[in-house]
């Protein structure tokens, strides 16, 4: 499967020295899926009526979304084409082993609008489980398909769907670095900023409207916050020394950052406008990679205060503190923590036998599960429903994105033919969720 990363962003020279993308970026994105849970839900998706007249298919997007979760098995629908419930012969679908059936139609309206009517049918009960009618402009057909996939996923699993979310990552090609935002399936990639110096550590604001990141364009790391809709950006932490590792507070008002200006690498809190600097951690070692708990009361971070890098948790108080609880004990290198949305677990990178792998630890039981067997995994980030983890890994010396299901059963790779993808961050649920 391959597509073009096709969006063009009009250049708007807000800041001198930065050059903005004004040419379409062409690169092929490949998606590969490995494994799959033992008890996948068999689902048949019938191409919607009149769908083939649209410039963008709907049901292929829905099918790919569901398949990537590892929770669904697509049942062949060839030869059968019901579009409304009265056309459905349930016995046909039961014979093919489908438990669920997706049917629907598309109606071209005036003024480039398209109405999509879809229904999710329960084959055993011979009844409709749910349905939806959406009217969108022709340019938003993929987004509409993701919404439908979300509705199906939610009806059949009981969990919130994340197909309408976005991801951010850094694409390095030659000596150019692009901070890109794409749909959760890797399509519609757009460069937010491109530069010839490294960019690392993108972090989504809780409302999904802004990205914080670290840029090296000024001979040292500086933390910026950029608004996606306007491309406007500002330096939030540009103090003497290094400025890095931004993490948003859940209310979106503050950032935890790592600064070195007062000695060592230590965690500070700063308002999003750059004011109100407050020191949070105090140790003689390295304290870095802060990540807020969903309730905003705690910060997970990486520290080598105990001799090797391990993950710690500290309560956020008004005074700086050296008190923190060590959470990881297996192995001599555990880094890059990211809380799950329920705050009950966190994902991180564990090094064992000189491999760097994605792991998850339950905070209550301290139980650790290693989810991957690759060699160089980096920067894991939970999907907002806690069911998948996005991370960067390396294949044949090439940086690619990968996602693994929370149980480690299913993995998918997203790669571009030229260039390295790294530093992924999974964005929040859209506001209407």
């Amino acid at each position, binding site marked *: 499967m391959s597509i073009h990363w096709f969006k063009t962003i009009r250049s708007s020279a807000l800041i001198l020295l930065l050059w903005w993308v004004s040419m379409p970026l062409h690169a092929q994105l490949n998606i590969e899926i490995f494994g799959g849970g033992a008890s996948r839900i068999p689902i048949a998706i019938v191409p919607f009526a009149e769908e083939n007249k649209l410039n963008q298919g709907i049901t292929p997007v829905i099918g790919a979304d569901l398949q990537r979760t590892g929770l669904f098995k697509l049942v062949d629908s060839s030869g059968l084409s019901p579009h409304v419930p009265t056309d459905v012969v349930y016995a046909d679908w039961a014979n093919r082993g489908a438990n669920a059936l997706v049917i629907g139609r598309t109606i071209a309206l005036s003024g480039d609008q398209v109405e999509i009517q879809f229904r999710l049918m329960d084959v055993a009960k011979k009844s409709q489980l749910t349905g939806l009618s959406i009217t969108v402009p022709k340019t938003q057909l993929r987004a509409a398909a993701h919404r439908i996939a979300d509705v199906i996923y939610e009806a059949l699993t009981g969990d919130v769907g994340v197909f309408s979310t976005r991801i951010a990552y850094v694409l390095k090609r030659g000596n150019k670095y692009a901070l890109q935002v794409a749909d959760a399936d890797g399509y519609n990639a757009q460069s937010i900023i491109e530069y010839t110096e*490294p960019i*690392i*550590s993108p972090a989504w604001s809780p409302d999904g409207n802004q990205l914080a990141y670290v840029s*090296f364009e*000024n*001979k*040292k*790391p*500086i933390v910026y916050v950029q608004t996606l809709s306007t491309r406007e950006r500002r*330096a939030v932490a*540009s*103090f*003497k*020394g*290094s400025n*890095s*590792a931004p993490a948003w507070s859940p209310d979106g008002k503050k950032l935890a950052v*790592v*600064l*070195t*200006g*007062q*000695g*060592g*690498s230590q965690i500070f809190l700063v308002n999003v406008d750059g004011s109100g*600097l407050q020191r949070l951690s105090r140790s003689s070692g*390295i304290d*870095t*990679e802060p990540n807020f708990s969903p309730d905003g009361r705690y910060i997970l971070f*990486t520290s080598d205060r105990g001799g090797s*890098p391990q993950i710690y948790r500290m309560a956020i108080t008004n005074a700086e503190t050296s008190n923190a609880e060590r959470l990881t004990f297996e192995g001599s*290198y555990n*880094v*890059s923590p990211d809380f799950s949305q329920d705050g009950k677990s966190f994902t991180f*990178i564990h*090094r064992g036998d000189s491999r*760097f792998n994605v792991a998850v630890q339950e905070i209550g039981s301290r139980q650790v599960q290693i989810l991957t067997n690759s060699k*160089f995994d*980096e*920067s894991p980030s939970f999907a907002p429903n806690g069911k998948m983890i996005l991370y960067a890994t390396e294949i044949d010396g090439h940086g690619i994105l990968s996602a693994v299901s929370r149980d480690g059963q299913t993995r998918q790779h997203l790669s571009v033919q030229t260039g390295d993808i*790294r*530093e992924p961050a999974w964005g929040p649920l859209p506001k209407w969720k």
Partner: protein
Amino acid sequence: MRKLAGIALIVLLSACASQTTQPEVDDLTAGGVGSGSGGSDLMDSGSGRPSYFSQLQDPNSILSQRSVYYDYDSYTVRSDYRELVLSHARFLRDNASASAILQGNTDDRGSREYNLALGQRRADSVKNMMTLAGARDEQIESVSLGEEKPRALGHGESTWSQNRRTDILYRGE
């Protein structure tokens, strides 16, 4: 003119001193010492640079050597780089208007942010040695580039050893 330059220097230095208790706003582009916009009397006529830069770039001078390398997982300045660091420290001590930026670097194994912190530790080790030898704190900014700007690409010890280093840069150079 010399007097004016002296006053300008005092203003700049006191501006720096007043900020040392707090992390200060980055002054790389703010027309600070050595940026070329102030202290023109320190310049060589025509070259647009303070006269001391000729020493820094003289290939026969140890001051033209700008990289300090480290052993694996180590942040202490090796004895074979001690004279190099001390020479730069003496240069800063003797040229009060010169200022340096020290960029720590690491190899590319592990977390990018953690490596950034490790690179900072390398730059800080050089800065500490320099300030103990008479350079002033305000003359030196230690920063880290982590694993982001490798001098050599690929895997293996010969590559990694080149990336475990601190580079010494002078402002205005």
